[in-house]
């Protein structure tokens, strides 16, 4: 299993979608940190480096980050289909479930890597605003971006880093859904687009208020929730992960190649 994981980690680094994501994740915070229209759109001025990653998260969690994660997850399996290497690997003494499990683990780690990069680049992009205490908020805590007086640097860093961690965790089911749909459609494009369609569809389901707390798309906003409410959210996300991963393995085990 360790050998399979090492192989899959090496593969993901070579994916075109990962290189594309890196370019976007580097470019995005730099542009956002100095965008002239921030006040016009969000109604505030950036005053601290800690607000840049917060702003990045607020503006990308609904669409950009889930899409990037889903595309890569789908491509990690899809590239085996397009290269024809899927059959080659399955002819070796490796069980199908073991092999897919290695891929599922790698795509589950991927959102954490994506958000770690996004976080670091955002913090660096905000350097001109300074890393000290500031008057305002990160936008991720209860006080919003305007805050309630002076915010200590350590507190701000903890708040932003915690939010990134929760955001990364909430993106894991999106990754797994990408793999599940790729197994189903046997196509990377099909897998990524189906994942995106499901996310859009789920967002439309907010018209059913009873359903809303359970939707995967609702959990994508978990990073902005108070820490006290995260237990339930974490359990729900874990449930989504388990369901998507199990379904992907079951389908993969029964596929004809």
């Amino acid at each position, binding site marked *: 299993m360790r050998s399979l994981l090492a192989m899959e980690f090496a593969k993901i680094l070579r994916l075109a979608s990962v290189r594309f994501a890196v370019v976007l994740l580097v470019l995005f915070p730099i542009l956002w940190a100095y965008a002239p229209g921030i006040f016009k759109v969000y109604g505030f001025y950036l005053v601290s480096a800690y607000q840049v990653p917060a702003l990045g998260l607020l503006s990308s969690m609904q669409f950009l980050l889930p899409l990037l994660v889903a595309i890569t997850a789908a491509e990690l399996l899809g590239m085996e289909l397009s290269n024809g290497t899927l059959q080659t690997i399955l002819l070796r*003494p*490796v069980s199908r479930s073991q092999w897919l499990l290695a891929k599922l683990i790698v795509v589950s780690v991927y959102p954490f890597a994506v958000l770690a990069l996004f976080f670091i680049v955002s913090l660096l992009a905000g350097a001109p605003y300074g890393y000290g205490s500031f008057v305002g908020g990160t936008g991720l805590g209860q006080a919003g971006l305007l805050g309630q007086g002076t915010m200590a640097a350590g507190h701000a860093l903890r708040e932003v880093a915690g939010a990134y961690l929760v955001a990364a965790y909430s993106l894991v089911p999106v990754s797994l859904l990408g793999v599940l749909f790729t197994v189903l459609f046997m196509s990377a494009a099909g897998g990524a687009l189906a994942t995106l369609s499901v996310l859009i569809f789920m967002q439309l389901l907010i018209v059913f208020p009873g359903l809303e707390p359970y939707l995967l798309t609702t959990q994508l906003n978990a990073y902005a929730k108070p820490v006290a409410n995260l237990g339930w959210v974490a359990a729900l996300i874990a449930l989504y992960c388990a369901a998507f991963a199990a379904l992907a393995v079951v389908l993969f085990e029964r596929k004809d190649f």
Partner: protein
Amino acid sequence: MATPSIEVDHLTKRYGVRPVVRDMSFTVNPGEVYALVGPNGAGKTTVIRLVAGLAFPSEGAVRMLGSNPHQDPSVRRKLGAVVEAPAAFYPYLTGRGNLRLHGRLAGGVEEDRIQEVLDMMELGNAAERRVGVYSLGMRQRLGVAAAMLTRPEVLILDEPASGMDPLSLHLVHSVLREAAETGTAVLLSTHHLDEVVAYCTRVAIMEEGVLIDEVNLLDRRERYRVWVDRPHDARALLDTQPWIRHAAVRGDEVVFIPSESDVVGRVTAILAEAEIAVFELTRDIFDLRGYYRERVSSERSRRSGAWTPSDPRLSGEWEDPR
């Protein structure tokens, strides 16, 4: 008789309601080269994938070295296979890098063995080049190298001749023949009937998912016709010889298939002893191409309702070398 390396037992595969392989049974013994031939869409690739464990049978069973490859992936340690044409590899890795990866997946292969199979397939000079720049033929040869990596007991190849120049083809043939000589069971699908006659042991002719005929090429490689004055007496005499597998009268001639080699002297001697005049004795070469054409077209005629049965063992399919 050794336990078969591959056993296919009443195999049926349906996609939806459409059967692509129907009630197919055959075995491949250690040291045998078994070829599947048939027109496009006959189901050869499906059979290869079913046997290799990539697809699941709708009915029937496949056993490889006594195990079900779906239930026991460890049996694939003894399997070498190329099921894609051209063979599929990671284009960004070198030839050697791809073989190392295969080695790791197979549970570990020594560096010397990797070099050995690269040299065997004449890829030593290209080993450090990325597979993305390999030609079609080089990829196919690398595929065979990867299949041979673990010294398999079973080799499965789908269209191994695809995209190969004559020299590469000759190389692959020799490698497969040598593998069979060391006891490896080889199952391959192909359209190249010359390749089949050159080194295969048995050939299965498929049409529309059905195995319509299985030809033992060891029996077929040698057949003789002897023109005599008393053909019926000659046939009766030859039929009693233990080294004659089969004899039949055809006009003035007796057609016979020996079970041993170098029988010409013995045949003329026993016929002379019985005072049967021999006017001519000819060795025929088995024309698989003609035989295949006849079998496929007669199968098609039979399905369309106009089939006339023939004795495929002793008619039509032989060509006179004169």
